[in-house]
């Protein structure tokens, strides 16, 4: 039932909002609203009950194991939320004088410094991008600005491995560049020969995730770095998989010129059902002048915003203010609780859990996409054989897992592995949780062997069965109207 269906004309959550209207007689009639907007008219209890019940229809980290590859669904410590929501932080206006935000700015400045240390990006960190994709946009705009500042206007190609996140090529396009795809070899590394042929005077840069979306570390990263740099291009690091290497190796040391970090992955800020994220960026020294503003600067004991006046070559602003400040506060609290030792343990245990789960699934008879490689913090199972022999697809298995109380792994990504499941357990899951996931995977394959139709009908125990996506796209129903109510 929709909230609108609880609505009755004239009902109100009376304690909310002013009880009486004020006069609008000084606003010209032709600028005033004539129709009542279709907002629900419900009591406070009805609204609270409705949305509480809706929440119960979700899987979440707090309720379920969530091994969603490339998404790093780790525990989001409650203290991060509580401390970011102190009334003084929530009440501060973004344009209030800097003197009223020294405590907040101290947190932001220290977070910049911590992220610099973690990534080895010596040129600096800007916290302003509001999600990974906006961090990518900032990064490619900086690469473009760097070439232009050198009078080099010909470089308009961004090289992207075929395993890359969809945001990488989409970002290149959005920045007025052309995305040029290069293949991956059978062990999951970039095809070096193809790279050599792709680079040239039109190369603006390359976008890489390392460990890659195939769940393996790009072993020849130094060679790649050399090839691209010698061709005059720069290296962009997609930080989606930073969790795997936290405290073990740093993008700055690998030769990257610009990186974004998904703080909603590695630094455990919540995913919130699809955001807000935070895509802080870090740069090498040569890209420092181009960073997006604002950035927090420190003079003596005082913090202040650095703006276009301080960075005249900046690519400019990407948000009205400074990005997702409240998300950044959560990341700061998390980073301080982990500390230096804790961060190393994140990389170690994320990797331990992934390798353990990979081995256990292999023992249970599942085929690995890259059996000769170590897992990073994630790995890929391919159901090519099951699909052919049993008719069991990655989608079927994913949906059946929901009935067993596990969120599905990432399915059908990366695109180049058939029937793939990209699995990332994260460091905060216990051995028991991982073991029971393996049991569920095994049980589902057994089910498929006995009765494939049963698996294909899944899920059975969720609020809805499998949904008709084709109908959703063909018979667009994107909003409720009173006429359409059934």
């Amino acid at each position, binding site marked *: 039932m929709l909230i609108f269906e609880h609505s009755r004309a004239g009902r109100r959550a009376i304690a909310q909002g002013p009880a009486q209207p004020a006069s609008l007689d000084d606003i010209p009639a032709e600028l005033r609203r004539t129709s009542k907007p279709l907002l629900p008219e419900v009591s406070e209890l009805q609204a609270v009950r409705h949305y509480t019940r809706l929440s119960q229809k979700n899987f979440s980290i707090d309720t379920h194991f969530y091994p969603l590859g490339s998404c790093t669904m780790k525990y989001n410590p409650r203290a991060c939320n509580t401390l970011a929501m102190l009334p*003084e932080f929530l009440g501060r206006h*973004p344009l209030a004088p800097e003197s009223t935000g020294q405590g907040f700015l101290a947190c932001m400045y220290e977070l910049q410094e911590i992220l610099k240390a973690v990534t080895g990006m010596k040129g600096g960190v800007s916290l302003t991008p509001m999600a990974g994709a906006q961090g990518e946009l900032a990064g490619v705009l900086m690469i473009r600005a760097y070439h232009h500042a050198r009078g080099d206007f010909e470089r308009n190609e961004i090289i992207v491995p075929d395993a890359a996140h969809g945001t990488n090529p989409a970002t290149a396009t959005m920045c007025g560049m052309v995305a040029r795809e290069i293949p991956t070899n059978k062990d999951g590394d970039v095809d070096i020969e193809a790279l050599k042929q792709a680079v040239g005077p039109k190369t603006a840069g390359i976008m890489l995730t390392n460990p890659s979306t195939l769940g393996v570390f790009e072993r020849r990263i130094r060679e790649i770095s050399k090839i691209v740099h010698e061709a005059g291009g720069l290296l962009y690091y997609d930080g989606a998989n930073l969790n795997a290497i936290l405290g073990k190796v740093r993008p700055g040391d690998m030769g990257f010129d610009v990186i974004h970090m998904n703080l909603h992955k590695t630094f455990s800020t919540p995913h919130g*059902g699809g955001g807000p994220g935070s895509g802080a960026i870090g740069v090498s020294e040569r890209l420092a002048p181009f960073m997006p503003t604002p950035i927090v600067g420190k003079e003596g004991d005082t913090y202040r915003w650095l703006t276009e006046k301080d960075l005249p070559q900046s690519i400019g*602003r990407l948000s009205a203010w400074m990005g997702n400040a409240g998300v950044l506060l959560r990341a700061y609290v998390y980073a301080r609780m*982990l500390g230096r030792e804790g961060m190393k343990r994140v990389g170690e245990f994320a990797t331990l859990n992934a390798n353990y789960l990979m081995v256990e699934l292999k023992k249970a008879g599942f085929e690995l996409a890259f059996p000769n490689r170590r897992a990073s913090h994630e790995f890929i199972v391919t159901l090519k054989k099951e699909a052919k022999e049993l008719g069991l697809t990655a989608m079927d298995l994913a949906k059946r897992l929901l009935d067993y109380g596990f969120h599905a792994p990432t399915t059908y990504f990366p695109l180049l592995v058939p029937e793939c499941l990209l699995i990332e357990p994260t460091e905060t899951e216990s051995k028991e949780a991982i073991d029971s996931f393996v049991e569920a995977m095994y049980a589902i394959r057994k089910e498929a062997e006995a009765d494939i139709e049963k698996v294909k009908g899944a899920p059975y125990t969720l*609020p*809805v069965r499998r949904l008709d996506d084709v109908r*959703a796209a063909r018979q667009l129903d994107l909003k409720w109207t009173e006429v359409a109510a059934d």
Partner: protein
Amino acid sequence: MSFIPHTENEIREMLDAIGVDSIERLFDEIPAELRIDDLHGVPEALSEMEISRIMHARAQRDGQYLNFIGAGAYEHHIPAAVWEITTRGEFYTAYTPYQAEASQGTLQLLYEYQSMMASLTGMDVSNASLYDGASALAEACLMAVRSHRKSKSRRILMPASVHPLYRKVAEAICTTQNIRFELLPYDERTGATRLDALKAFEGEDITAIVIPQPNFFGVLEDVNAMTDWARANDALAIAVVNPTALAVLRAPGEWGGQGVDIVCGEGQPLGVPLSSGGPYFGFMCCRQEHVRQMPGRIIGRTVDLEGKVGYALTLQAREQHIRRSKATSNICTNQGLMVTAATIYMSLLGPEGLANTASVSHGQTRKLVEALTKIDGVSRRFEGAFFHESVLMLDRPVQPVIDALLEKGIVGGYAIGNDYPELGNALLVCATETRTDADIAHYAAALNDVLRSAA
């Protein structure tokens, strides 16, 4: 503290299963020369109690002020239930609803949100959010260029009365697409965009015109005339609006004879706290005919294999994870949790509550302007009707006055002379329903003191 549950025994069992003798061995594919031993520059770990103490101390240092700034971020009362429910783990720690069957709560909520926003703006469809108001305007400009195929110029008319930071963001994001923004001046007297300035563009290929309501000065624009101009000159009309104001102001879908094409804006006033500028959320709505060019996630209602109603992400062929380099935008993660708060906020207020919030904000701003302009040396800058903000002129530089008010616990307004040098000693002030008559009297007395003591 790393929130890691493993016992020593379990670590040993897991390593044995893998067939290695140490965790360190698991990193043996990383070239040795790249490995680091320690994260110099990262401080030692703190317990929850220790970090709690630091954060409380910093929050107290920042303090709480009586705020009279709006300028794109507005302090409204947020019902307690909004964030109590929004931070429930099931909303707070869920991922993007790609697995629809396991995400019906978030998906249905987003469908309800889309319904509310479409109605509030008077448009056919809404997406499920963008990052913030400024980047939503940039995306709206990119969308207009894609959608208006007949127009080749990529010229967009941008009133100078649009939020200056929004204009900067639009520049930064659209610059690589060869989009040119032509600035439309505002009327010296009214503070609204000069309609006569549009004459210069008649007969030319203009892709779109941006129409703010209210504008950055708080002034109401003649949105009907501007929308009709767009229609008559074959340009798309992009409205950038305050959602609270829409409860009492004409919906952009009804502006002029036929309404606008795209509506965008900052969703923060709908239940999201100020929190130094984020996270907020951008909203975007459009006419049906443009829906396939809209960026961001969209939720559709459909049925499951038993015919039961359910909700799912739809029109994903627009998006980066499917279309890659040909996507409408690179946006992936949006601001889902903020939309959760906004949806609960709108449900709790309802049409009457939101309209009262809007009209009382307007009424309190009228009182504020009246009280402050009674003071010698303070006058209203523009004559045009306003919503809940107004530009005041002081008889002296603004910054020292702002500093002196701060000493009295008041954040007195925003010095817009920095963005509009021609306005000189101008102060943009705002009141919402949260500023009582007593707050306004307190501000007026404080401003009077400051101006008199320094005179």
